């Protein structure tokens, strides 16, 4: 089927135009295109400006929980949530049960994504067997599998052994892989519950010091430079990390980094409620960290926004803070939060949003058909945003199977209104 998107604005720029999608590609862009036998999509907004047309968003960091915790999320529900959030591709993290540390599991997850059909699923392979941090998993076999794994991560755990990290960075060069590091020095974070600082001292919760993240990032950029490997830093959360990354990039080191939507707006003060919906790893930091992250995202030091969508079953969140699992859902709120933190204050344009949430993450994950320019002949992986449609987050009305959104009740300034995957509407 072909679609005619009427009255939309690519990248939110210029006058509204019509965009025709045929056979999974963008076939025509122009003013006043006739509908013909295309199905029309009315992209006009009430203020006459037109919905913002962006490349389909790409998430480098999603926990789909299948296999193992299908009570919290499945590939079906997680990818539906992704489509609702404007995503046309997600990278599914490896910390499932069993762990995605072999070709069998990554191919299973990839196939489940294909069958669900809501968005493309690019499985992430574990760096080490069982995420144990001791022995390299069969990275090459996963790369050569049907799932074509390019991103490898022990996310949830840090590859803390310096020698192992070096070998991983070196080894994946053979198939253009990237090591996505969860930067957390384990000895500095034993029993850690929240950001170590003023609030943790009041609340009597064991601190997770910023230096535990920064020390690992500093080491890893030096290792990446030494071996010429490709490093990606997951969920950067501190001002110090941004400074280290800025320095590393200035020296030409091949490192990329992501920030989560929640780290762009929420702070450790929220822990005073002891409500575990605000427990996340890395933890919410201070207002000055939030500002540094926004500045880093604006100037490109931080390459991408990645959700770290981490659904959890109710019983794992409705408990004491210390007993609760860390993590927040994020797929359906990511675009709205980025609009609030970056677009509304004028720190990112919609074209920049396309860069940080589609083009660069697709590039890091080596997804050839995602994050492409909005141009004739390109794959029709797209999303449409109503930039003026404020909405209130309701945890009970989301596609994700879990309810652990920290944004419940919050009004977000922009909404994803449609998503197209290879020319077919998925949301």
């Amino acid at each position, binding site marked *: 089927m072909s679609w005619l998107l009427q009255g939309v604005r690519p990248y939110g720029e210029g006058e509204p135009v019509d965009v025709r999608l045929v056979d999974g590609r963008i076939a025509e862009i122009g003013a006043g295109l006739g509908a013909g036998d295309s199905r029309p999509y009315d992209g006009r907004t009430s203020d006459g400006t037109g919905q913002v047309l962006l490349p389909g968003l790409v998430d480098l960091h999603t926990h789909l929980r299948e296999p193992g915790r299908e009570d919290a999320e499945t590939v079906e529900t997680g990818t539906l949530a992704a489509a609702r959030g404007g995503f046309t591709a997600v990278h599914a993290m490896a910390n499932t049960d069993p762990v995605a540390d072999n070709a069998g599991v990554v191919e299973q997850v990839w196939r489940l994504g294909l069958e669900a059909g809501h968005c493309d699923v690019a499985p992430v392979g574990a760096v080490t067997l069982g995420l144990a941090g001791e022995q390299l998993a069969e990275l090459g076999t996963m790369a050569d599998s049907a799932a074509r794994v390019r991103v490898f991560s022990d996310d949830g755990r840090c590859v803390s052994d310096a020698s192992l990290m070096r070998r991983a960075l070196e080894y994946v060069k053979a198939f253009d892989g990237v090591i996505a590091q969860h930067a957390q020095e384990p*000895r500095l974070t*034993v*029993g850690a*519950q929240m950001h*170590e*600082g*003023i*609030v*943790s*001292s*009041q*609340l*009597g*919760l*064991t*601190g997770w*010091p910023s230096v535990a993240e920064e020390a690992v990032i500093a080491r890893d950029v030096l290792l990446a430079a030494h071996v010429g490997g490709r490093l990606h830093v997951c969920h950067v959360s501190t001002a110090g990390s941004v400074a280290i990354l800025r320095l590393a990039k200035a020296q030409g080191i091949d490192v990329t980094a992501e920030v989560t939507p929640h780290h762009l707006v929420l702070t450790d003060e929220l822990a*005073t*409620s*002891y409500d575990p919906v605000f427990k996340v790893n890395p933890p919410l930091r201070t207002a000055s960290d939030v500002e540094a992250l926004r500045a880093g995202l604006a100037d490109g030091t931080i390459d991408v926004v990645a959700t770290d969508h981490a659904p959890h079953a109710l*019983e794992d969140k*409705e*408990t*004491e*803070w*210390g*007993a609760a699992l860390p993590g927040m859902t994020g797929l359906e709120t990511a675009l709205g939060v980025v609009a609030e933190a970056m677009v509304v204050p004028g720190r990112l344009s919609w074209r920049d949003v396309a860069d940080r949430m589609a083009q660069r993450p697709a590039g890091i994950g080596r997804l050839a058909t995602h994050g492409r320019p909005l141009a004739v002949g390109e794959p029709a992986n797209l999303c449409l945003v109503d930039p003026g449609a404020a909405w209130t987050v309701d945890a009970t009305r989301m596609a994700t199977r879990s309810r652990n959104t920290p944004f419940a009740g919050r009004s977000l300034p922009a909404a994803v209104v449609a998503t197209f995957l290879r020319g077919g509407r998925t949301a």
Partner: protein
Amino acid sequence: MRRHLLSAADLSRDDALLVLDTAEELATVAARTTVGKLPTLRGRTVVNLFFEDSTRTRTSFELAAKRLSADVVNFSAKGSSVSKGETLKDTALTLEAMGSDAVVIRHSWSGAPVNLARYVQGSVVNAGDGTHEHPTQALLDAFTMRRRLGRLEGLKVTIVGDVLHSRVARSNVLLLSTLGAEVTLVAPPTLLPVGVHTWDAAVSYDLDAVLPKSDVVMMLRVQRERMGPGGERTAYFPSSREYSLRYGLNVRRAAGLQEHTVVMHPGPMNRGVEIAPEVADGPRSTIVEQVANGVTVRMAVLYLLLGGAEPAIGSAPQVSRA
């Protein structure tokens, strides 16, 4: 505060003084009765919900409730449904359905009383949560200081030891500053929280410099697992011997205190580590009084929270800090 006592920060100056004054009154009145009991809370039910062993605190709350003629149920995590995986929420709803008016909770996780307060209609009293707070301990400490020294305003109180992991220290700093005392925390730097500079207290690493100026010296328990050599966590200091030398209240140090200075300890003590036996048992020590005062102060807290007076502690009926 209001319906619950979750943190010493819930208490305004007037609230705190009301508790202390009420405790004085209750002690006087109870002493005059032949059975040592008051009928005030007859027909009310107080549940002691202890997820962490503490015979001393549980007994203190139990006696306090019984002296006010309340019915008391002791619910300990061991041998109960809690150890079978029941959540705090389910336990709370169960107790609620059985008609408890107040829940006294001790828990190993910081913040558990705050979580509990979201689930129950009755009052929640924090009897110690993780490394967060222990507000009734701070109240009984303040009560003890005022009885011994006649005032709290301007009193120089030195708290010595493992501040980082101490719920007693947190509650005491909050309450004592509310009541106008000047608190100094003394500890090795490893046992002070990173954010301690924002607390309403001075900080020193040098016990000998602070002791002569102190009206009250409160020694905190040092737990064995904080000492070297480290297990999962690196130790906070090299040995109990070195700790005792640098931060222990020994006979020599006690001899240098002012005449009127009192020595306190929330118990249980490590005799010979943070405090010498001679000091713990000496005339300056209030350690046994603290235990007795604990019952009195907890009577006052339960009395005020369960509507023994109008208003109860504080005024607005709202959940603080929730």
